[in-house]
């Protein structure tokens, strides 16, 4: 009887040991699985993260995001007024020997123009280091709304320095200039205007027409390439 009781106690102890062993194994496996899941999750996140960066890096390259053509545009005589209130003859301004970059904007534009102007804004300091004679020009395509006060406020919003001039005119003058640069928008509705920047080195040089969006780096690169004399090797 006594042996039997001892045997029973030993059996119960063994049972507890088995129970504990099962719990231990289960716990370890849960922890391992958990950490495996966590690690898997982390590695998935890491993977996603690296995919993310890869995808960001894989955004369409410059060749796809913007198109470049080189063309001569005869500039018609037309009168504009600047953000400083000065009267400007556009044909005279664009015959300036200074390297010029020109864009069309309007001050209540929400999608395209803020990006175009922010790109000019960011490029200003670096352009100054490359050639301090550069001239940036933003022409309003909404002249009836964009009076001198409005373009002046817009210039301040984009931290324009002395090398950046903003112009507004009347409907006729604006239309003439849009037509000259071949950027008339469909439906005569300014909401349909496109993102285009024009660069030129000298008055007699062709305009480099850039359709689409380019980064500030790319704008600097285009400008630098434009003003760098071509080396002729014999």
């Amino acid at each position, binding site marked *: 009887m006594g042996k039997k009781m001892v045997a029973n106690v030993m059996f119960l102890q063994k049972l*507890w040991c088995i*129970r*504990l062993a099962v*719990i*231990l194994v289960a*716990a370890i496996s*849960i*922890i391992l699985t*958990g*950490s495996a*899941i*966590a690690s898997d*999750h982390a590695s998935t996140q890491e993977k*996603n993260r690296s*995919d*993310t960066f890869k*995808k*960001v890096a*894989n*955004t369409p390259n410059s060749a796809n*995001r913007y198109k470049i053509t080189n063309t001569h545009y005869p500039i018609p005589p037309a009168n504009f007024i600047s953000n400083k209130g000065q009267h400007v003859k556009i044909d005279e301004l664009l015959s300036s020997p200074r390297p010029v970059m020109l864009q069309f904007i*309007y001050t*209540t*534009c*929400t*999608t*395209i123009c*803020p*990006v175009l102007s*922010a*790109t000019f804004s*960011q490029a200003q300091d670096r352009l100054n280091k490359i050639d301090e004679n550069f001239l940036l020009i933003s022409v309003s395509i*909404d*002249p*009836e*709304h964009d*009076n001198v006060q409005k373009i002046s406020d817009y210039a301040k*919003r984009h931290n324009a320095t002395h090398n950046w001039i903003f112009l507004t005119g*009347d*409907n006729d003058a604006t239309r003439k200039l849009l037509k000259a640069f071949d950027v008339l928008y*469909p*439906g*005569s*509705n*300014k*909401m*349909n*205007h*496109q*993102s285009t920047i024009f660069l030129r080195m000298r008055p007699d040089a062709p305009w480099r027409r850039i359709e689409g*969006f*380019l*980064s*500030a*780096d*790319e704008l600097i690169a285009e400008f630098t390439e434009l003003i760098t004399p071509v080396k002729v090797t014999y």
Partner: protein
Amino acid sequence: MTPQSRLSTFFLLFIITTSYISGENAIADDKLLIGDVEAGRLIYMQGHSASNYPIQAITSQDVKVSGSGFACVNCHRPSGMGSSEGGKYVLPVTGPILFAPRELNRNRIFSKLFHEIRSPEFVTRMRQARMRPAYTLDTLATAIRDGIDPAGYSFDPIMPRYDMSDGDMANLIAYLKSLSIKHDVGIDSKTAHFATIINDSTDPVARDAVLRTIQGYFDRFNLSIANDRSKGNFSPNYHSDFLETYREWKLHVWTLHGPPDTWKEQLMRFYEIQPVFAVAGGLINGSWSPVAQFCDKERIPCLFPNTELPKTADAENAYSFYFTRGLELEAEVLSIYLEKQLSPPQRIVQISFADPYGEIPANVFTKAVNRWISGSQLESVSVSNTATFIEEINRINTHHRGIDALVIWPGEHVSDVITVLQKLPPKIDVVTMPSNALEAWRKQRTQADYEHFLFSYPYELPTAYHPRAYMVHAWMRSNHIEVTHPTLQFQTYYMLTLLDYGMRNLRGDFYRDYLSEIIEGEAESNLNNGTHPTLGLGPGQRFASKGGYVVVPDTKIGIRSVSKWIIP
């Protein structure tokens, strides 16, 4: 407790603790669940975090931007329904749309595909059906921060990649979830309710002309949708695809009585009885300001009323849309004209009647002269009735030497003023009046023998050619609508065509802000029927025409312009 049970408890706690630690990421995700809608609105509308610092972002790959200029509302608009501009299609970002998988739903992009003139690049992009699963809180945060949607597509580089903390992100997402989640009032499954607002002191003949134009258009519109509905699956121009989005238009004429300071209360009572989706124009004698305040309070688009006294202060992004700045614009146009025509120094006498039609432009003229005409001497006189006006004219005629111009704001006494001027012609070389005196002048003076009487004129000249004017005349004839007040009726027709276009292009997304946004974009598109040289708006703009002429009466062609189109 036995040692065994203590051990078991230890293991159990251990497991729970480790599970908690491994679930840390899930808790981090949960942070996104709680956000403050008002703080999110600040980010969406102004680009500022709750602690009022500007949110930073990168656009166009490396261009650093921040703050209100690049707040979400700029492109995705107050409704959150997105926009399209310059070949870029900006997607809607309302909670119901973001947190559902994108489906091939042609109706949502129909107008952009077929109704609007777009560049080939834009059309190509629209036709690329990019599906995506529903956003989760995590994937939406990734989209906003890194510009990647849940299907792995990168957004266009001009979509800014925002550098936002978890807290700001939670707030923004809370706001997006609340944005345009249910249709605005004033529209149900069958009917869209619109009001037009008039007041009892308007000319009854002019009022009838405006009302019959509106009612005629409503009748015609309802007939056209009944016609589409009667044809079942027959689908000319895809109309049958949109039958479910059609609503019959019902017009409510809200007639205001008594002084303007009681109008707001009267409007509230009308609105309580029957809420309307939008206000379709109207005719108001007096300032539109009380009505504009009502429109802003209830966030109702109030479209192009016939008024000479719009609410010009804080008009941008407000809920009232106007043709022009009215008499304020005319005062500025005249001041610019005088500045160019008269040699300095100028001595100008201004007589204004003591009512809103006299005082408001007189005050604007005074400011404009001080701003634009340097060295001028302006003498302003306010008169309260015709007798005192006669006294002033007699005084001026006695001491007319040295006065270069007489500027008259006849207020609500146009007819009396013209009669006085006919009997007592001022001995001044240049006399100006606003356009609302032109008709009375032409009626009372059979001969245009006073070239020195000039009128500001913020409308198109009668000699100008607008092809759409012929179409509208034909429409009026075919609908038996007599044209007695061409300017009022053609302006009203323009308002109705914009409302029609806007309502159709909501395509069932019945949000008032979205209607306003469509109208902002469409106002410039070839709907001008000749009332003004150009009509156009832009995001936030509320005055469709911005300039005016200075004209003289002409016996042959009615009026003749003596200035270019002047834009102050």
